C-alpha cells in the first residue's frame, strides 16, 4: 500500500448520503467510514439500496445530499487522479461484446496503461488460464464474476468495490471466490462488497452494515452484531426424547415449543441446559443453533430475511 493511505488509515468516509428517485427514497442519510485494509460488507435484501450507495461512493452517481471521500479525495465529480487507485466491478457484468476472456482483460488493462503480461498474470490468478480463448458470453456465472474481478484488479488498485460478486453462482464457486477475495485483502487492499447473503457477510467481512429500505440499521463486526442481539440459543431435541413439559421445566429454559414433535428449546444458558439434556439421555439427533445475522435482521425489522 502507499504510505499515504496507510498513514491516514481511512479509505472511505461517507457522510449523509441520500438519493431520491421520484417518490422513492432509495438511500436515506447514510454515513459510514471504512478503514484501509478492511473487508467492509453492505448487506441487505434486493432493493435495499446497496448498489445506489456503492455508485454514489464510487463517484458514478451524484448524491442528492451528503458527500464521500475516497483515499482522501472527493469522489464526485469524476476525479482523474483517483480513478487509477480504485477498482470496480459493477453488478451487471460490464464487458465488451464478443471478446474472449484474455482480450477482455487486456483491453481493460490498456485503459490503465497496463501491459498484456500483467493482464495474463491476473487471468491465471483468478483461475481462468484455461478459459483464456473463450468468449465472455460462453463463460459460467462464476467464471464471469472472476473475470469481472480480474478486470477490476488488473491495474492493482488499493481500494476495490465489488457489487454482489457472488450473485447467481453455485455454493462451491462462491467458496472459491471467498478465498480469492481473502487473498486480495491479505495483500493489503481494502475491499468493499455488497451481498444479500447473510452467511457471506458473516464469513467474509470485518464489518457489516445491515441495510433495509435505504437506511443502515446497524453497523459492526458480524460477531458483535450477533452478541449485541442477546438472542437465545435454540436447541432442537429429536422426537420422543423428552416431553414438552419436561423440557419447559429444565432450569434455564426460557421457552419450549413443540414443532411437529421436535421440541424446540430457547435458552440463554445453553451449557447448563445441554448438560441437563445429556443427563436425561436426550442427545441423540439433537441440534443447536446459535443466533445469526438472520436473527439480527429479524430483530431489527420484525421481518424474516428474504434475499
Amino acid at each position, binding site marked *: *500500500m502507499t504510505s499515504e493511505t496507510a498513514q491516514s488509515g481511512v479509505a472511505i468516509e461517507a457522510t449523509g448520503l441520500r438519493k431520491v428517485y421520484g417518490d422513492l427514497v432509495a438511500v436515506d442519510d447514510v454515513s459510514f467510514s471504512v478503514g484501509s485494509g478492511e473487508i467492509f460488507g453492505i448487506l441487505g435484501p434486493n432493493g435495499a439500496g446497496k448498489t445506489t450507495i456503492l*455508485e454514489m461512493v*464510487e*463517484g*458514478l452517481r451524484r448524491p442528492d445530499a451528503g458527500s464521500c471521500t475516497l483515499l482522501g479525495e472527493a469522489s464526485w465529480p*469524476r476525479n*482523474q487522479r483517483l*480513478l*487509477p487507485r*480504485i477498482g*470496480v466491478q*459493477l*453488478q*451487471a*457484468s*460490464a*464487458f*465488451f*461484446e*464478443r*471478446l474472449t476472456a484474455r*482480450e477482455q482483460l*487486456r*483491453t*481493460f*488493462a*490498456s*485503459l*490503465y*496503461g*497496463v*501491459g*498484456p*503480461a*500483467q493482464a495474463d498474470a491476473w487471468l491465471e490468478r483468478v483461475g481462468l488460464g484455461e478459459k483464456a480463448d473463450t*468468449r465472455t458470453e460462453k463463460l459460467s456465472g462464476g467464471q464471469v464474476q472472476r473475470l469481472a474481478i480480474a*478486470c477490476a484488479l*488488473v*491495474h*492493482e488498485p*488499493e481500494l476495490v468495490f465489488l457489487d454482489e460478486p457472488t450473485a447467481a453462482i453455485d455454493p462451491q464457486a462462491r467458496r472459491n471466490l471467498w478465498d480469492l477475495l481473502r487473498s486480495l485483502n491479505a*495483500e*493489503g487492499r481494502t475491499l468493499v462488497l455488497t451481498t444479500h447473503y447473510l452467511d457471506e457477510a458473516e464469513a467474509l467481512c470485518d464489518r457489516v452494515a445491515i441495510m433495509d429500505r435505504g437506511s443502515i440499521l446497524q453497523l459492526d463486526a458480524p460477531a458483535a452484531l450477533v452478541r449485541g442481539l442477546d438472542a437465545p440459543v435454540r436447541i432442537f431435541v429429536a422426537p420422543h426424547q423428552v416431553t414438552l413439559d419436561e423440557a419447559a421445566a429444565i432450569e434455564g429454559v426460557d421457552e419450549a415449543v413443540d414443532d411437529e414433535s421436535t421440541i424446540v428449546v430457547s435458552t440463554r444458558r445453553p451449557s447448563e441446559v445441554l448438560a441437563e439434556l445429556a443427563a436425561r439421555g436426550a442427545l441423540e439427533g439433537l441440534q443447536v443453533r446459535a443466533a445469526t445475522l438472520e436473527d439480527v435482521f429479524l430483530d431489527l425489522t420484525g421481518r424474516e430475511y428474504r434475499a
Partner: protein
Amino acid sequence: MNTPRARGRARSPFWAISVAIVKGFFRDKASVFFALIFPLMFLVLFGGLFNFDSSAKITVVQVGEVSLVDDLPAGAREAFDETFDVTRSRDRAAALEDVRKGDADVMIEQDGDALVAHYTQADQVKAAVTQGTLRAFVDGANVAASGQPPTYSFESERVEDESLEAIQFVTPGLLGWAIAMSASFGAAATLQGWRQSKLMRRLQLSPVPARTIVGARVLVTVLIALVQMAIFLGLGFFAFGLQLTGWWWLSVPLLVLGTLCFMSLGLLAGAVAKTTEGAVNMANFLVLPMAFLSGSFFALDAAPAWLQNVSLVLPLRHLNDGMLDVMVRGAGPEAVVQPAVVLLAFTVAMTALAAKLFRWDAD
C-alpha cells in the same frame, strides 16, 4: 504494490477500444451481414435487373408486305437484323395470338403509309426497345424519303448505354443507403448495448476520457464505411462496368461526413430507445423510408414535384446527390459543398439533441 506501467508494453486506450469494437463487429454475423452483404445483394440485384442483355433479339412476326422493312438498304438491314429476328406470316390472327402468349415479342404490319406494331407491355424493356428502334427506323426512312442525307444511328447501342446508366445511377444511391444503415445501427446498438451492460458506467470509472471512447467508435464506423465503399466500387466496376468520373474521390470526404451524420442519428435513436433492439429498430424505421425518399433505390425524377421538395429536408438526399454528382455525373468540387454543409449541420443538431436526451441508466 508495484506500479502497473512497469511491466510489458500497453496499447494506448484509443487503440485498445478501437480493436475491441472492430472484433466485436466482425464476430457478429448479423451486423456484418446487414452492413456489408445485404446492401451488396441490392447492388447485384439492381445492377443485374437493369443490365439488359442486348444479344437477346426481339422476335418479330411480319404480316404481309411492310415496305419499310422489306426495302431497307443493305447496311441498315444488317443493323435491323441485329436487334430483330423476323419471321413472316400470312395469318394475322395467329400472329397476334403469338404475341399475346409471349411466343413472339412484336407483330408488325403496314396500314397505308403507317407502320403498325403490336406488342404487349409484359416485358417493358423489350417493349421500350421495340418502340424506340422501330420509331428510329421510321424516322430514318422519312429522312431518306425527303432526299436529305440519312442519319441512321445504331439503336441497339443506345440500349446498352441505358443499362450502363443504371449501374451508374444505383451505385452511389445504394452506397449512401448502406452507409446510413451501418453508421446509424452501429451507433444506436453501441450506445444502448453499452448502457444495458453497464460497460459505459465501467468505462466512466476508468481514467480514459470520454472523447477517447467516442473517437474510437467514430474511427471504427468510418473505417467500416470505407470498406463498404471499396467493395461497392470494386463490384460495380468489375461486374457491372461502373465508370467513375474525374472527381469521384471527393465522395470519400462526403462519405465520412455522411457516416458522422448517420452516427448522430443512431445516437439519437439510442438515447431515446429503451432497449438495444428498440434502438436498432428505430434507426431502421428512420433510415429505410429516408432511403426510398432520397432516391437510393429509384430515381426521384418520376416522383411528384412536392415529394422531390420534401426529400430535400432529408440528409440522405443530399449525400446521394453529392455522391452522384462527383462519382458519375462528372461534377467537380463545387458539387460537394452544399451536401457537406447540410450533413455537418445535421450532425451537430442531432448530436446535441442526443446528448440532451441521453440518460445513463436503462431504467
